[in-house]
């Protein structure tokens, strides 16, 4: 084992490896910053090149690219209100209001530092748990997944400032959207109105863009050149403000740690994905804040939690992909394909025959995060110039990228029609003060919940939950849902 670790460290000392890591980090940041792209597209398009590359050339590039994609995405989410990736939506909820208040640099400083801390700490977790994680992962089955997703759905009520009922209604609308497409269990096509492009379900890109990207652009267009983004003063985006964001992370180090743990935990769970994890982290940051009403209006903890979480998730995701051969995320799935194309079968063999490679690739997640921080931190003022672009230039360019990005995802013109529909829905959600975040969470988790539920029912029948871990998760769920009442009772009913 020690020999493998030393060989793995040897890979990391090679200048060529550093070149691939640097290339992947730069591309990941750039793709993350450009709305509509992101690390997923970058990885997918890099896949054909893996034919001609060695594993220690291709994989460091891909791992580094995926590790910092969210970091780049957080910059546009904070400054423009356009998430570079769906996982940056939670960051946008408070990061963009901070920009509007003239605290853009502080938000970016917090996001970069939280990303760095989350990514590095989670790599530490991954390395420590590399050998212990196998029995834990193997013990999680569909019956546990049902209740993990239910907890995620319960967190819907924590999102938004318009009250639990409206958040839950929004979540249910998202669950309705998740019902569109083919049912895995029966093979029946549902709510598609015979439209072939909906058979696989609603694609996430037009839904995300419609709900989260178009409404801010419309709002910016309405404000014209007097919009808040174009008014951002570059002088206020100083290094001092950025360091203030770093200080905020240090002050909230335990939140950062807890959210990294959440991200790591969700990362190792196959299929749950970053989106559920970041909203869980956001909900946790809100639930543990003394002033939860300030969330959505520019609370720095709303930036720290999701950013620590989404970078931490990557380490867990890659560990699951390598150790079990089960992708923990979409980027993990592409990485899995790349490994197979290079003739390496991911799975337990990666921890025995290729432990050196697994070790070095996990280390690369941390190194990419450090590089991403080093590249981004001194360039905050330059990156922040994006926010100073007049709205008359910014709006058409971003709209073009939204439309092109939507099309490029599946090369279907129908997706653009979906974008229009969800743009209108996004505006209506905003207009009537429902919660787009809850809707998206319901949409993401709905299909997964249904699939795991039916698998559990088919395997074990109606009593599938009568096992220790599901019962523990049910207890957690009940405690979460009844927590406001329990807290009120515990405090003697003095607090509403």
């Amino acid at each position: 084992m020690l020999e493998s670790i030393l060989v793995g460290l040897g890979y990391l000392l090679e200048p060529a490896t550093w070149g691939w890591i640097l290339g992947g980090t730069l591309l990941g940041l750039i793709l993350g910053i450009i709305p509509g792209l992101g690390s997923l597209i970058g990885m997918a398009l890099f896949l054909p090149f893996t034919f001609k590359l060695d594993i220690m050339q291709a994989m460091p590039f891909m791992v580094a690219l995926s590790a910092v994609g969210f970091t780049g995405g957080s910059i546009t989410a904070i400054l423009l209100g356009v998430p570079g990736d769906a996982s940056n939506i939670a960051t946008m909820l408070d990061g963009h209001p901070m920009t509007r208040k003239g605290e853009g640099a502080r938000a970016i400083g917090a996001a970069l530092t939280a990303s760095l801390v989350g990514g590095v700490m989670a790599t530490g977790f991954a390395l420590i748990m590399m050998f212990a994680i196998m029995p834990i992962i193997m013990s999680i089955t569909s019956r546990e997944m049902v209740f993990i997703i239910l907890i995620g759905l319960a967190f819907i009520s924590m999102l938004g400032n318009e009250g639990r009922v409206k958040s839950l209604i929004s979540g249910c609308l998202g669950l309705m959207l998740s019902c569109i497409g083919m049912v895995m269990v029966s093979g029946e096509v549902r709510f598609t109105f015979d439209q072939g492009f909906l058979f696989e379900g609603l694609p996430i890109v037009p839904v995300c863009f419609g709900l989260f990207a178009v409404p801010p652009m419309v709002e910016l267009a309405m404000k014209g050149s007097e919009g808040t983004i174009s008014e951002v003063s570059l002088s206020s985006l100083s290094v001092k403000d950025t360091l203030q964001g770093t200080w905020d992370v240090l002050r909230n180090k335990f939140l950062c740690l807890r959210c990294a743990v959440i991200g790591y935990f969700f990362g190792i769970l196959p299929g749950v994905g970053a989106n559920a994890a970041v909203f869980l982290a956001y909900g946790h940051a809100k639930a543990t804040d003394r002033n939860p009403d300030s969330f959505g209006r520019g609370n720095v903890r709303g930036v720290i939690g999701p950013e620590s979480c989404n970078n931490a998730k990557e380490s867990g995701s890659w560990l699951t992909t390598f150790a079990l051969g089960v992708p923990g995320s979409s980027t993990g799935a592409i990485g899995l394909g790349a490994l197979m194309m290079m003739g390496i079968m991911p799975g337990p063999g990666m921890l025995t025959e290729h432990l050196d490679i697994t070790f070095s690739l996990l280390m690369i997640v941390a190194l990419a995060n450090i590089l991403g921080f080093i590249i981004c931190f001194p360039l905050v003022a330059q990156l922040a110039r994006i926010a100073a672009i007049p709205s008359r230039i910014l709006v058409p360019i971003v709209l073009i990228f939204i439309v092109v990005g939507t099309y490029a995802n599946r090369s279907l013109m129908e997706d653009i029609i979906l974008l229009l529909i969800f743009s209108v829905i996004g505006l209506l959600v905003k207009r009537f003060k429902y919660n787009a975040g809850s809707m998206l969470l319901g949409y993401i988790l709905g299909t997964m919940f249904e699939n795991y539920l039916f698998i559990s029912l088919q395997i074990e029948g109606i009593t599938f939950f009568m096992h220790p871990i599901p019962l523990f998760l049910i207890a957690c769920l009940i405690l979460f849902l009844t927590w406001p009442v329990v807290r009120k009772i515990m405090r003697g009913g003095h607090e509403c």
Partner: protein
Amino acid sequence: MLRRTRENFFSLGIILIITLVFLYYASQLDFFESKIMPIFIGIIMMILLVMAFYNEYTKTGCLTLSEDENSTDDIGAHDMKTLKCILPIFILVGLIYIFGFYASTFIFIFSYMKISGSSIYSSIIISILCTAFIYVAFPILLETPLYTGLLMQHFNLPF
């Protein structure tokens, strides 16, 4: 206050209709496995809607008017302005269908900037740069060919 209440009732009413249609279609599905989840969601939604209507009716819940609401006249003007500002997206999609991505990118950015008050030179330069970037980034670097449009396909033009 009354305006806001009416709006809440209106939005809840729309969601109620959507839920009823959703439940109707769910009941028409062939397999039990296909319909159980939508019906379950529909029932949960109906319960939530009853709670929301009740909250609204009694004015003690979360749907009451917040203090920073706009006045009635402002809300109407705001809605009209929103409609006006979302129109360019529909125009852009129409342009893409006819002219494809490249020509539409140029036409859309140039027109938008010119109408918004930019100079003709900056409008042309930024439009050309954006079109070139999209051409280089998507079909060349990312190897994602973009839709060329009905007109271009009809005349068999290169873009």
